[in-house]
């Protein structure tokens, strides 16, 4: 193929892609104008949303409630719980995939101590980072345990706590984390504990059902068809929202440890990789 022919082919490709994007945009605009998204923003919301808002914390109709004042959380872990359960498994698989791709064959746990002796960034950055990392940790735990009452939940808390690792990696180095035992060796079991815990909480009603009491998997509060089973919604001022407190905390462990593992894998120095690959 000559150079001019290749250039011409390139031009045709660009034209096709340009026309394609233009058609896509025109169709999207037309769909929105014609009301595909339901005349947004409207003054009234959909009946389904009204149902969730009305019953999430409806203490007068406890056979339909989710025992949480946070409507989003009531859907994530109660009304649409299965959605979140399978989404957690997608997340679990994505982390396994990343670990499988980045793992070093034949090396159990990577340590950079002794190989590298970097000093990290300057003192100012280090001191500020120490403050920020501790704040992030406190805020993340607060988001996790208040997930059933305030905005946030397990996912957000987990994402926040993994950012603390990332900040520490950038400002100090991998050695700083290794000295504090934040390694893949510790984080992988924590992640598994989180995911297995979520599974156990979801299946707890099924275990109860073995004793003869009728209960649904992932059931939170007593329902019309299963009135004899329900997690305690709270103890006085300590409001748990049934099983949602446990879900949020376990999800926090799973997501936080999962992302931390990935970031730790990213931070393995190229030198170690090259050595291992050379041996192969």
């Amino acid at each position, binding site marked *: 193929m000559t150079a001019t022919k290749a250039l011409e082919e390139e031009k045709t490709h*660009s034209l096709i*892609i340009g026309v394609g*994007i233009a058609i*896509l*945009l025109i169709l*999207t*605009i037309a769909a*929105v104008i014609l009301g595909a*998204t339901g005349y*947004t*923003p*409207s*003054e*009234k*919301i*959909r009946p*389904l*949303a009204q149902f*969730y*808002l*009305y019953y*999430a*914390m*409806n*203490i*007068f109709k406890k056979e339909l409630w989710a025992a949480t*004042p*946070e*409507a*989003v959380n*009531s*859907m*994530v872990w109660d009304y649409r719980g299965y*959605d*979140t359960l399978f*989404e957690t498994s*997608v*997340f679990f698989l*994505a*982390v396994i*995939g*990343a670990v499988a*791709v*980045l793992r070093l064959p034949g090396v159990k746990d990577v340590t950079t101590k002794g190989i590298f002796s970097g000093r990290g960034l300057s003192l100012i950055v280090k001191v500020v980072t120490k403050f920020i990392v501790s704040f992030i940790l406190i805020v993340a735990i607060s988001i996790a345990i208040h997930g059933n009452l*305030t*905005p946030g*939940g397990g*996912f*957000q808390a987990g*994402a926040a706590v993994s950012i603390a690792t990332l900040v520490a990696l950038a400002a100090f180095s991998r050695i700083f984390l290794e000295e504090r035992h934040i390694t893949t060796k510790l984080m992988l079991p924590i992640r598994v504990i989180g995911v297995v815990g979520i599974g156990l909480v979801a299946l707890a009603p099924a275990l109860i059902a073995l004793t003869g009491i009728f209960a649904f998997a992932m059931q939170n509060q007593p329902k019309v068809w299963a009135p004899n089973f329900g997690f305690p919604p709270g103890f006085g001022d300590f*409001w748990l929202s049934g099983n949602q407190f446990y879900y949020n905390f376990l999800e926090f462990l799973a*997501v936080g440890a*999962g*992302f931390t593992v*990935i970031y730790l*894998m*990213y931070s393995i120095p*190229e030198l170690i*990789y090259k050595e291992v*690959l050379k041996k192969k």
Partner: protein
Amino acid sequence: MTTLSQALWIYMYLTLIGLIAVAVYGIVRRPNLIKKIIALSILGDTANTFIIFIGFRRGLATVPILPTLNPTLEQLIAFKNTAVDPLPQCLVLTAIVINMSVTAFLTALAIQLYRLYGTLDVREAVKLKW
């Protein structure tokens, strides 16, 4: 709805559509894998914002969180009539985490591709013998 807020909404929708165009261009046309991943995450975030817009409510909208643990019936009805739609927020919440984990996985693949074959250019990568 006043003309100004109408104009603002149209402006926001057009911005989103423009972002989709940028993201699709990046995914289809940029040869660098990292740029493709960045464009993909832009596309995901744009779609999420679009879904959040669908759930928004005109007028005096409040957050979908009840401020009390012992609500009266009037409070519940008022909450139902003023809060924004929580369903899109719930969907987006899960979509964000999936987006983040998929991005992490793709980045891992890109890093490994670069380590093993020394290139992030897909035009070069397809020529390699695997």
